[in-house]
């Protein structure tokens, strides 16, 4: 996924989590907004992790080599 939408969701998650924590600790509202913020952050971080480049695994094609040797 493109980096700008991911950045937006990460920042939004952080801001909403902070707002939720501030409202809950000052006893104006419950912890609902805080939980939603954490949820958004989790979705963004999971997506970021799955979008990161993975190391390429190389496998020796031993079966193919053996096949060639038999010839």
């Amino acid at each position, binding site marked *: 996924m493109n980096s*700008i*939408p991911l950045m937006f*969701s990460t920042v939004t998650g952080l801001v*909403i989590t902070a707002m939720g924590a501030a*409202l809950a600790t000052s006893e*104006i*509202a*419950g912890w609902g907004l805080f*939980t939603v913020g954490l949820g*958004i952050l989790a979705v963004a971080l999971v997506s970021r992790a799955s979008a990161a480049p993975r190391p390429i695994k190389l496998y020796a094609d031993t079966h193919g080599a053996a096949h060639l040797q038999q010839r």
Partner: protein
Amino acid sequence: MHFDVAPAFFLLGALAALVKADLKFPPALYQSLTLFLLVAIGLKGGVALAAHGSSEVIWEALAVVSLGIVLPLLAFPMLRKLGQLGKDDAASIAAHYGSVSVGTYAVAVAMLEAFNISYEAYFPLFVVLLEMPAIVVGLALARGAGKDSGYNYREVLHEIFCNQGIVLMSGALLIGYLAGPQADSVMPLFGGMFHGLLALFLLQLGVVAASRLAEIRLNAPFVTAFAVLMPLIGATLGGLLGDFIGFSVGGVILLAVLGGSASYIAVPAVMQTALPNANHSLSIAASLGVTFPFNVLVGIPLYIAIITYLKPVT
């Protein structure tokens, strides 16, 4: 301990869908419950308008309509620049978030009544009025409003003014206004059974919302964040406007709820006709799969808490 019955039924429906329980609603029942809610809300609003309406309502209505114009104008650049969505997709979603959700409004009214917070009972007039401007703004944002925009204006105008939400709510509002106290004869159905049928409606909507969540998988991070942030922005603007207009605490809360809600009945019908190339499942999944549950479970209690904190009920 205060327990909200309506959101509990919504959660039950969502849970049933997530565990794949055998919970089947006949499609006709969902349709009937929607029709009931539209008529009940419109009728109650019309009766209240006949009893308490004055010329001031016209100015209040004009101010409320401005909210429906501003919200899609705010949402569109966010969707284009931060979400990197195409023009049609961004315009369609912006129209959804500028318009309103009757279901969310019904839940807010039920919660205000549970908390004994009074409100301007003619608010359904504003619900009807707020359905339309965002659609027009959304279509103009997508392709401009000139002759070469490519719209079939006849079809689009028909969808805007003749969709079931507008017809039933404005019709019931007019009937209630003309009937006044004589509408009492039908109130045992539309007033007395409102909360029970709302609970059934939310049970079904819980099932629908949970099944829609899968459709945002591709754009999940952005759509989830936008579908929570936009209601918070809309609710803030709605609350400030409500306070500026001089509504009661309940009225300010209701305008915040309307500003924070997103349409899933009227706007999708219009957008499917006007913008056939837009990704409609994305906009419905955002409004019904994320924003509606957010508002019902977290948003409305949050708006009530903040507004009553800032402006205590007297």
